């Protein structure tokens, strides 16, 4: 009935160092590749225009791979990835423009993020408290929360209807609250600027700029991750198409909110943003992203995430905390999307809300699906191909996008499992994991 366990190649009893060495060995090679690649790009051997395309490929790779974690490995169909990118972009561009003084003030930049975090945290606590209160009201009666919500809505509407252009109490609460938060934020920044500046000058001047840049990237990513958490929470209850539409809705709300925020430039966008991203930084970030997500996906944590994707009920039946795994995927995916957004913003000298709209989200979903759900190398490949394709088609400028969309349809018809079908180009694990099963299953949440 059973064969010997030790015959199986997977059984090994080394102390672990072997794996560590093997896993980390390719890294120096990848980093070293930067030199020839960077030289090729930097020497403008292919022209200035092509350098821009290479950068775009880089951004899209980070975005596609981070989306693959959410859509492919975690099986949650997110159509709102551009929203996370937008958060990262704007919340890196704004401090870069306003506080960092051409990247010479890492301290103040850090202060910005800390103050922002504190302020938003307090606001979030208040709103969260409201939600918890609503939930607890369920103790009184099962439909108490629903009734309370409806009552609130009716009150707000009645407010508006009655007062018609005069300030209403509801609106007053809102504006006062927002004003208070703004005062808190300014106060924090105000008091902290001096010590922060001292901190900045304490650093040797040569690393001040890189550190500031890194702070901006991490800050943008973290803000995006926080939004990812907020989006991931309600997403837990939704399946398939509903989840897609909900994430789409969130991304659009983010975009519209940005569009209507004067400090963020409104519909005209933010400009001029100091430029710092170059090929080397982008390359480094791409490597980091791919390595991190690869390692998460092909680890016990990734395995658990995939198990939750395969069958949530069975996963719960073996003790997995499905909530945690699903939200983790969102948070990590959103983080890297935010980093990509930050990189993008600090490369383009200006950003507008329209570049982070539905079209971008769709582009990314197409990349991930075309590459094959559940395959990181597939996402990379598809990102490269789909970024280069419109450029390749430039000679047929008029029909370029028509051909692009036609190719999309044909690809889906002819090879639905994607280019790589869920397999990886580089061997992932000994117990191979294959293409995911249909993830868009039940139309209604349980």
């Amino acid at each position, binding site marked *: 009935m059973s064969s010997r366990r030790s015959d199986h190649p997977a059984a090994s009893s080394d102390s672990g160092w072997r794996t560590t060495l093997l896993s980390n060995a390719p890294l120096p090679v990848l980093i070293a590749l930067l030199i020839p690649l960077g030289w090729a790009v930097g020497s403008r051997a292919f022209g200035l225009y092509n350098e821009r395309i290479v950068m775009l490929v880089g951004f899209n790779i980070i975005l596609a791979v981070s989306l693959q974690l959410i859509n492919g490995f975690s099986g949650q169909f997110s159509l709102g990835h551009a929203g996370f990118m937008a958060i990262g972009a704007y919340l890196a561009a704004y401090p870069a423009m306003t506080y960092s003084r051409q990247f010479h003030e890492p301290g103040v930049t850090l202060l910005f993020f800390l103050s922002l975090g504190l302020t938003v945290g307090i606001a979030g606590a208040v709103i969260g408290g409201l939600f918890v209160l609503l939930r607890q009201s369920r103790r009184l009666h099962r439909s108490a929360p629903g009734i309370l919500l409806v009552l609130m809505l009716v009150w707000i509407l009645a407010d508006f209807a009655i007062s018609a252009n005069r300030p209403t109490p509801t609106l007053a609460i809102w504006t006062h609250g927002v004003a208070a938060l703004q005062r808190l934020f300014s106060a924090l920044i105000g008091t902290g600027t001096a010590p922060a500046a001292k901190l900045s000058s304490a650093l040797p001047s040569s690393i001040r700029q890189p550190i500031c840049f890194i702070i901006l990237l991490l800050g943008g990513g973290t803000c995006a991750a926080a939004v990812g958490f907020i989006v991931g929470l309600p997403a837990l209850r939704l399946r398939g198409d509903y989840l897609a*539409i909900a994430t789409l809705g969130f991304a659009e709300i983010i975009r519209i909110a940005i569009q209507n925020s004067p400090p963020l430039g409104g519909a005209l966008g933010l400009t001029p943003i100091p430029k710092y991203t170059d090929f080397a930084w982008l390359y480094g970030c791409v490597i980091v992203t791919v390595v991190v997500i690869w390692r998460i996906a092909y680890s016990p944590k990734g395995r658990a995430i995939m198990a939750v994707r395969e069958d949530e009920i069975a996963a719960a039946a073996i003790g997995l905390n499905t909530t945690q795994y699903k939200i983790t995927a969102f948070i990590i995916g959103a983080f890297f999307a935010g980093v990509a957004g930050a990189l993008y913003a600090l490369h383009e000298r200006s950003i507008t809300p329209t570049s982070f709209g539905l079209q971008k989200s769709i582009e990314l979903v197409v990349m991930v699906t075309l590459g094959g759900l559940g395959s990181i190398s597939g996402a990379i490949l598809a990102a490269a191909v789909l970024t280069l394709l419109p450029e390749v088609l430039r000679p047929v400028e008029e029909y370029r996008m028509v051909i692009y969309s036609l190719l*999309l349809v044909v690809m889906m018809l002819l090879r639905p499992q994607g280019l790589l079908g869920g397999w990886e180009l580089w061997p992932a694990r000994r117990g191979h994991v294959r293409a995911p099963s249909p993830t868009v299953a039940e139309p*209604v949440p349980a």
Partner: protein
Amino acid sequence: MWRLAGGADILVCLGSASAGSTFLVTEFLQQLVNGLSVGSIYALIAVGYTMVYGVLQLINFAHGDVFMVGAMVGLYAATGQVPPAFPWWLHAAVIAGLFLALLVYRLKGRSWRLTLGKLVPLAAIYVLAIPGLLIASTISKRLSLPTWTATIFVLIVTVTLCGVLGYVIERLAYRPLRNKPRINSLITAIGISLLLEYGGQNPNVFGATPQPFPAGLVPGIKGALISSHHIVIDRVDALVLGLTLAIMIALTFIVLKTRTGLALRAVSYRFDTASLMGVNIDRTISFTFVLGSCLAAVAGLLYAEKYPSVDPLMGLLPGIKAFVAAVFGGIGNIAGAVIGSLVLGLIEAMVVGYLPGGSQYRDGVAFVILIAILLVKPSGLLGRNVVEKV
């Protein structure tokens, strides 16, 4: 999955809508009429979404673009403009594609009967389209607006073309993927949507710049119906409301009283069982698409009449809003789609009318409603919660 608790609820809600014109006037009622008017247009689109979702569990992303095509075709038919003739290589591509499909089917070993059965309808559409379009463009050049002949002509041409478009899309893009994971159909739907949008932006077809829709397509449509006591109800709005009401009544009749409607409901409940009971699934699904597309065409004409500007991207926002409305009302439920659309239209009008700076947030309303309903009751107002059996 469809629950029409008799046609009564649709009639009730629409009845209360048209009753507004007999009330005494306030600004509130003005907004009400605005909201209902826009909501009715959304309703025509939303019904298409909800029907397709009911039978296929597919979000037809391309539906909003069929709406756009309706407006575009209407523009061409009404003004006598004809898009420049399709380039020769497009014709060659279509013919080549048909032959290729023929070859592939035969090589795969399918019988002649099957092959021809699949390809003949498509070929027929192609062959008939050329002279058909020619005749239509000749007639449209001789039209003079506004006359009833012109209106009927434009209506027929638009509805027919969009119906055919819906049929072709389903046949080519959705039917082959029916047994595959649904995300593939979603991507294909997105691809078709992009195809229609970019195709429309192609200068050979329409171009990217918006063109004005001829006002006064229907005789007597200009001007106000009621204009007293500070309330103005345009005739356009009255037309929209009236036409939508009539269509909804007709739709209810079709779905509840005819055999095709019965087949529709059967397929939306249980796909496989319906086919076992002798329902021709393919035909039923095609019917659903054609019906939805015809409604979208009418919606396109009405929208263009109300906001007389046509451009290839005009279908995006109304499409999304109509979809949100369908989800809000309970996707798969026709009455829900209608109610959801009307409520959405109303809330939009209220926000624009009463919120300071509200017109900027107009488009956001739909998404806020979406998130709200998905958080509170994801199956929608009239939807049923389907729980997975363990």
